[in-house]
């Protein structure tokens, strides 16, 4: 699913410029703890989070995240927006909560890209 299509599915609003809206999103991951994200997320996922600080963008950059969605209509501070623009990662805000967002995206055909703890070692190991 393209980022532009994802925005439609979640009634989202794009926050920053410069991101590639044709970028392919291969799945999703939802978390507020960045270490959880770094531990579990596979490349090219959309990250759903309630956290708005610049570390979300840094985490996304390290983990090859395709787009970031802020839940419950949250709007990140300017430092976060500037960093995302610089790194060309799409920031999207959606009025829905985390559960609703996961449900909508899953129903639209987006699989989970969160490695479960029981999955054992990932391709990283």
């Amino acid at each position, binding site marked *: 699913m393209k980022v532009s299509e994802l925005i439609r599915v979640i009634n989202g609003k794009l926050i920053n*410029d410069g991101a590639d809206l044709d970028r392919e999103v291969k799945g999703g991951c939802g978390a507020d703890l960045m*270490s959880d994200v770094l531990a579990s997320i596979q490349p090219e996922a959309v990250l759903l*989070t309630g956290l708005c600080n610049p570390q979300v963008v840094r985490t996304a*950059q390290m983990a090859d995240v395709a787009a970031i969605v802020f839940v419950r209509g949250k709007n990140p501070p300017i*430092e976060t927006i500037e960093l995302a623009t610089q790194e060309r990662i799409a920031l999207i805000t959606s009025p829905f909560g985390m559960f609703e967002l996961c449900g909508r995206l899953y129903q639209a055909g987006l699989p989970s890209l969160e490695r479960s703890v029981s999955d054992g070692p990932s391709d990283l190991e």
Partner: protein
Amino acid sequence: MAQTPASPHNILINDQVAENITRTEELAYELRVSEVMTSSPKTLSPEMIMRDVVEMFRKARISGAPVVQGENLVGIISMEDLIHCLCQSDLDAQASKYMTRDVLTVKGTDPVVEALKIFVSSKVGRLPVIDDQGKLIGILTKGDITRGLLKALQRDIQVEEIRKYRASHLFEDIESDRTSLILRYNIKPRDFTHGGAASSHIKRALLRLGASPQIARRCGIAVYEAEMNLIIHTLRGGVIRVEIEPNRISIEAYDDGPGIPDVELAMKPGYSTASEEIRELGFGAGMGLANIARCVDNMVLESVVDKGTRLKMRINLDKEESVGEGYSSKLDGGTS
């Protein structure tokens, strides 16, 4: 010129350039009309019979052309003029009868954005390009502009590729018993705004050196967790030192305090001493060291209370994954 400052957005957004729109805007100011126009365009003389004009347009697959007398521009014939002529069934008339005489023009030295403004405000399909003496030197369509911008963007990409290519061959021509590249970053305590900047630079450097995306990602995540640890826990900050060799990446993150009282406990997933404030930032869940261990091939954590902590990490690179030695040595299989 156009009354309202026309934005190049009006014309230029399409799928190919949307991604680069900011750079495209810059280019619209940097590029000159003469760089993107079609030089030596097909021209008409005022005496040319309209029937021949139609035939020429059909053969050359164009929909308009400037009319010149000697070297001077005297008019232009567009599709609209042609239709006008056809409606009158007047194909034997001369071009001068149907040409548009008040011609909008641009200068070759104008930035492309000036031409864009005219296109937006006037609805013309083509603009004759003249030099300072008013001599016709080319013709410009919106298609020429799009092509010119895409070509310029392509050049930008090539510059990055050349940079990447050079970096990826960094070690190839240097002879020593052991060559390495060392990157050092000073990390300030509690500097959450810039937290991750060092990791970001390191990841980019590795990609330029020819590391695979997987290696860059593993290294990025490990260094990022280490960098955040320095920011969260140290008294006076610390240093991240990355040593890049063709077959291995060695990373050290060290500081001078406060030190970890129980290293074994600190390594346990979920154990954390971070404050509520840190947790609100999305860190301090006690997963950092576990994450690092997962990403690197070898990890050693040494710490003395009140002295400091030193975290050593190593990622080994297979022959296919070697950095700084270029693609050729990878194809040969290397002999090192």
